[in-house]
């Protein structure tokens, strides 16, 4: 974990409302798939708090990129960044996707919307390890899919299914629909589901995983105060005595952001949206 002032190299719009920020660091970092950073434009005072963004891609030992959707105050501030602007950054943070290769089972990667940002490096790693991988990629629209990095995922050439809410690309259904079909029709014995997306999607993924008794990891979101474990503001409710013997609440930033899906008490919503 380093606290540093990085420099924006580029910050381009991939699709309306979706951007890719590339920053340069002054020291080397080692990043594992699924880790994130806390970022904000240097000196900006509104909003005060940094925002968590998954590290989308390691472009070099001192160069990282982030994929983000411009939603509210924090991401709007990030969207203003131009070349050479400075960025306050704390990174890399959180645990990472643990890839289970021993069982011989494959991987099903479920990306919902901008949740994709946490999954590209995972897919790269799965490919590198030659894990039999299926990508399920869901977005609101064709444009949103482009904004969520679909081209980068396609470049990996993994078997994949794309869904959109409005049918503008791929099948018109929720991304959880092909997940259920996959498990029902193809079994995927010994496989692991890796999912990142909106809470309702992940909740449904967790249900499906439980139904088909499939190992499932989810990367969660929560409003974050600090990103490094001191504010205890980012917690999710977990099953006591469940996997890893969790207590009542765990911090998404340091105990996660990746959790086994059955650890989470999905009925206690960590986010209001």
């Amino acid at each position, binding site marked *: 974990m380093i*606290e540093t002032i990085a420099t924006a190299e580029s910050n381009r719009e991939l699709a309306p409302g979706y951007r890719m920020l590339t920053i340069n660091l002054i020291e080397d970092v080692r990043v594992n798939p699924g880790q994130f950073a806390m970022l904000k434009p240097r000196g900006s005072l509104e909003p005060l708090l940094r925002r968590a963004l998954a590290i989308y891609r390691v472009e070099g030992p001192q160069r990282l990129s982030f994929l983000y959707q411009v939603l509210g105050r924090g991401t709007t501030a990030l969207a203003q960044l131009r070349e050479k602007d400075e960025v306050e950054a704390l990174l890399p943070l959180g645990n990472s996707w643990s890839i289970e290769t021993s069982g011989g089972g494959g991987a099903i990667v479920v990306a919902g919307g901008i949740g994709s940002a946490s999954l590209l490096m995972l897919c790269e790693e799965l490919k590198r390890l030659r894990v039999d991988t299926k990508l399920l990629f869901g977005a609101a629209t064709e444009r949103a899919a482009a904004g969520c990095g679909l081209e980068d995922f396609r470049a990996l050439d993994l078997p994949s299914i794309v869904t959109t809410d409005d049918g503008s690309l791929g099948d018109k259904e929720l991304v959880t629909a092909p997940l259920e079909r996959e498990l029902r029709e193809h079994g995927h014995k010994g496989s692991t589901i890796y999912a990142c997306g909106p809470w309702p999607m992940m909740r449904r993924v967790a249900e499906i995983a439980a139904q088909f008794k499939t190992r499932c990891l989810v990367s969660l979101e929560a409003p974050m*105060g*600090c990103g490094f474990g*001191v504010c205890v*503001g980012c917690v999710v409710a977990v099953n006591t005595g469940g996997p890893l013997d969790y207590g*009542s*609440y765990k911090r998404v930033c340091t105990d996660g952001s990746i959790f086994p899906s059955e650890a989470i008490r999905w009925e206690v919503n960590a986010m209001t949206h």
Partner: protein
Amino acid sequence: MSKVSNHDPRLAVEIAGIHFNNPVLGASGTFGYGLEFADLIDLNRLGGFATKGLSAKPLAGNAPPRIVETHGGMLNAIGLQNIGARAFIEEKLPRLRGYDTRIIANVFGYSDEDYIEALTILNDGEGIAAYELNISCPNVKEGGIVIGNSPDAAARLTEKAKRASSRPLIVKLSPNVTDITKVARAIVGAGADCLSLINTIVGMSVDVNTRRPRLSYGTGGLSGPAIRPIAVRMVYEVARTVDVPLIGIGGIASTSDALEFIIAGATAIQIGTANYYDPTITMKVIDGLSEYCENQSLENINSLIGSIKAE
């Protein structure tokens, strides 16, 4: 973990016989158990810090969402999730003792008895410099009234706590009162060695789409730069009322912010929310205070305390 660190002697301050290398402390609830900052800053350079509020038994805290950002600040309703006084002594203190920084144990309970129980446990802990009594946390439902909002209840608890504690006693004031000097006087009268102020101010934020409060708890405590002018005013008022040293808290995010509190009457300051968005802020403020001493040719920061020119 080395204890060798160059301290600017001009910045040293003393509170209730405790020597602080400088007046810059981390505020309770924003500095974890200190160790979380070991990789981010040189803890040996820090004046000290107050631990997350410790209770006799571990507490799970409130359901999420627990925080929401507001303009210039944030609301929190953590609900005092903590590992408990015993675990603090056993798991954290041994590692903390390796650092040359003053450790203040922030103590919390739902009743007078809870506080005494926590203090009794902590009395066993080696390396704690002082206690800070959090009598003003607005985010816990049990207990009914907030002790810190009533001069009588606060004085009663202070007296008991003073008797139970083997260390200097700091009492942390609630800002949610009509006249903070009344509560301050009562607490000092009951034996407190130092007052720290302010804790968070009760606030609320509503999600206009769901029509629900944005915090699961409903209301929360407002902190951050937004509340600084209120905190400075309260430190100023209390400084003119009581004779014990004060620790100023509330929205400090720069050297100049820290100086406002010191000039208004604080012997030391605590930085809270700013640690979240600028984890090295304590170091920056320490450096900034040295620079200020240099520029203003101050031999000692103590001459600044309460030096405000106001009728």
